[in-house]
């Protein structure tokens, strides 16, 4: 069971959290303007890297706040957690956050 450092509550056990998948996939401001391909990519395409991954978590059974995390999907070690709307202090390997 992971130990997750909620930016508001500090380190807490994983069972208090829900994972929301890849982070920094902003909902397009004008969905209507997007073609089918771009929209499908927004809906379904995910980086799914083996290595550093930016992902969303909510402290569901805690402060109920969403936040972001960088986690290494191979070691499962968290590198950083940071508030929604902010950027990590360093970016995942070679990838820019969108």
């Amino acid at each position, binding site marked *: *069971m992971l130990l997750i450092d909620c930016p508001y509550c500090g380190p807490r056990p994983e069972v208090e959290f829900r994972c929301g998948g890849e982070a920094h996939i902003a909902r397009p401001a004008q969905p209507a303007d*997007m073609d089918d391909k771009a929209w499908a990519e927004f809906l379904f395409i995910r980086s799914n890297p083996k290595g550093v991954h930016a992902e969303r978590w909510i402290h569901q059974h805690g402060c109920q706040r969403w936040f972001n995390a960088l986690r290494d999907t191979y070691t*499962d070690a968290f590198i950083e957690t940071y508030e929604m709307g902010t950027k990590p202090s360093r970016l995942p390997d070679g990838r820019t956050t969108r």
Partner: protein
Amino acid sequence: MKQDYRLAKGGRIDRARPLSVTFNGRRLFGFAGDTLASLLLANGQHLVGRSFKYHRPRGVLSHGSDEPNALLAVDRGPGRIDPNNRASMVEARDGLVARSQNHWPSLDFDVGAVNDALAPLFPAGFYYKTFMWPRAFWDRLYEPAIRAAAGLGEAPSSPDPDRYAHRHAHCDVLIVGGGPAGLAAALAASATDKSVILADEGAELGGALLHESSATIDGAPAAQWLAETVKTLIGRANLTLLPRTTAFGYYNHNHVALIERLADHLAAPPPDLARERLWQVRAREVVLATGAHERPLIFADNDRPGIMLAESVRAFINRYAVAPGRRIVFATSGASAYSAAADAKAAGVDVALVDIRREEACRADAAALRAMGCEVLTGHTIIGSTGRKRVSGLIVAPIDGQAKVGARRTLDCDCVGLSGGWTPAVHLFSQSRGALRFEPAIDGFVPDRAAQAVRSAGASGGTYPLSACLTEGFAAGAAAAGAPAARSFAASATRVGFQPARALPTSRDAKRVKAFVDFQNDVTAKDVKLAVNEGFESIEHVKRYTTTGMATDQGKTSNMNALALAADALGKPIPQVGTTTFRPPYTPVSFAAIVGPSRGSLFDPVRKTPIYDWAAERGAKFENVSLWRRAWYFPKPGEDMHAAVARECKAARGAVGLFDGSTLGKIEVVGPDAAEFMNRMYINSWTKLEPGRCRYGVMLKEDGYILDDGVVARLAPDRFHVTTTTGGAARVLNHMEDYLQTEWPHLDVFLTSITEQWAVIAVQGPKARETIAPLVAGVDLSNEAFPHMSVRACRILGAPCRLFRVSFTGEVGYEINVPSDFGRAVWEAVYERGQAFGITPYGTEAMHVLRAERGFIIVGQETDGTMTPDDVGLAGMIAKAKPDFVGKRSLARPDLVAPGRKQLVGLLTEDPNLVLDEGAQIVENPAMPIPMRMIGHVTSSYWSANCGRSIALAMIADGRNLMGRTLHATVAAGFASVKVSAPVFVDPKGERVHG
């Protein structure tokens, strides 16, 4: 009371507390402090079981949790029988009943032993090569036979009366293992102000010191040091000592699972005592001091009862005061067995020792043992053993420098102690995903790079001298507690060092003898070789092909031997071969302990509404809907479900029905941007909805499919009372929070679940208004003042309520939202009032029928996660003017606008009395060959008492264009004709609801 092999003195057993156990119906005696293994040996019972495949007689191999052979069923009374207990880990207690396993008809005479004779037919993986013809024989003959032969003990068959506890714990330092290294670590760590937990799987702390009779520590005998140390530790308030507790799993982020055995060792456990307790420890730092496992030597027939590990012989003698034989031959490739031999000799046993190594490598130890009067043969190999149900001799022969085997000689004995070296117990370290490194000096893998906050000490790190174990343990404990400190311990010298031994040189045909590697799974050296010959080169392949290391001991004593043999066969160095993966649990853990309290009535919460008891008192039948238990129907005496539901449905349309809608999800959406937020979440528009009015809303997932629906009331410009389906309550709130916090954090809106704040009492039917009118204060209930789809605050019985004029039946309807604690009182008052009109409580089944009669969908029944609003006929609700809402863009995806999508329709069976199965498939032409083209399926289907016939809703491809067409629905056997209709069966114009 006679115990033939019990030594007259010594040991840690309590001779003042004699006890007896029953083994295979025979009463045997022992003392408190015995294990089942030591007790059986004290009584001369070496044969304790039959092996898995060849049914060979087997005895005790070890004194610890690495035991592969001595697996017994233990019977602790009704419901308390379990198989596969390691005799070495079962503490003896008075009245204990144990049985051997895997034999028929008896342990002594086992028919299955023919397998041993047929063994040439059963090499590793033989079953992959045969049993293929004739094909049909596999199911009927071969497989049943294979299955019957497999398996060890019998699974328990009755419910388990014991309770199992759980405990989450946190500590600064978790120490696993209470041998010298672990105890020293605890001394250091607990001397700080840090919180420390020490767990050891043994009944007593001390590890190897429990059978160390000759060593001294800081001048005192080891046993005395142990007693004093344990006393010191018990006095430390920041230290929790957990004996009988195995750390079995090392998970992410220093989450370590321990299993504590609380009751099995007690003759009469207190009734409330849990049998076992699962600890889940989150430790800042972990110190692993789990010791090392001794390896057996590999030679022909090395598995006879009486052949055991050398250190175990020592433990049986020193700790349990049991001489496992009258004449013991030790066979070793290393130094530690000399200590065992010396102790055995000192205990009065006749001892000889055979060392694989040449005299030069062991001269001093050999000399010392000879000086005690023991025969010591060096430079010898073991050719085999004699005896069947108990070893009677060890066949040895000299080997010269060229590994040439000389003349055989048989050393008579009734017990053999084997020592093929040691393997550090790196299981937990490896589970923590730490990297291992092969250390040639000890011919074993040792911890290398740690992946978590963990360190190893003592034998588990490959350090064997006692003084070093202590010193290292202390340093590890201190460092883990963040207070680096050193202390050196002056212990007497330990005999260490061994020469790696693989399959021993033999003058027999190695291809034809059975030299066991994995005792429990009957894997022999030649099986490993065969696997490699057949191209199974990865050690993981070798493991799976031969099943070595896959038995209940997970190869603790055998994996290193197996992989060394494989490396030899491959001609590769060991590090290149690597280990197999270490996985939890370290030793098997009962399902119940893992589950803990979540059994029976605590398996899942049962959510009940404030009206539940009222319904139960009236004999309602209930159904599970997510975690809720909802009233399903209210049978009157003599009524079946059909009759009850028909009556309830008629009452709701003919007079007035009363329904508990409390489980509906409810969310209060508050804030200046509430309407804007609602606009974005729902397909509808909310801007123009006036306070005091309600609207039915539909919500999509971003992929365009329906997520949920429900009536939403606007209480004030900045306040909405949203309802959701029962099952969707949490999902919808989560969905809303997600968008609110992550996409639109600038919107000032706050969401609060109020599902349980309000009980919901639905009063439906032509007499609904008259029923509630006398109870409602502060609201003009007239149609004009309070039309359909309105909401008002009011008081009922003094309780502040939110009164909704809504209907899920198509009749005049009200839903009283009353603060939950007043729910039952208001319900009873309404029921009371309604008596005059024949008020009838109805359950979820009638609710389903009533809404289906009006063609209202249920999310999750008409929809399945692939339906759009248009599919279910709700396209008209989509606010055309809104540029965006969640899911809108997806509705324009090619396939969501393509023709031929399934659409909601009604179905009327040709035979009005036939009620279709929900889930029935629809075809156009039942005469088509299989596979048939299915064009839809029935989503809802009921007997409608109000219509006097059956009705159904269905999703059918292009259904709205098929009105009036005859189609065919599957029934239990064949098809039934159905006619497509509009999905409304009662009040097609929807007038009744307006009253």
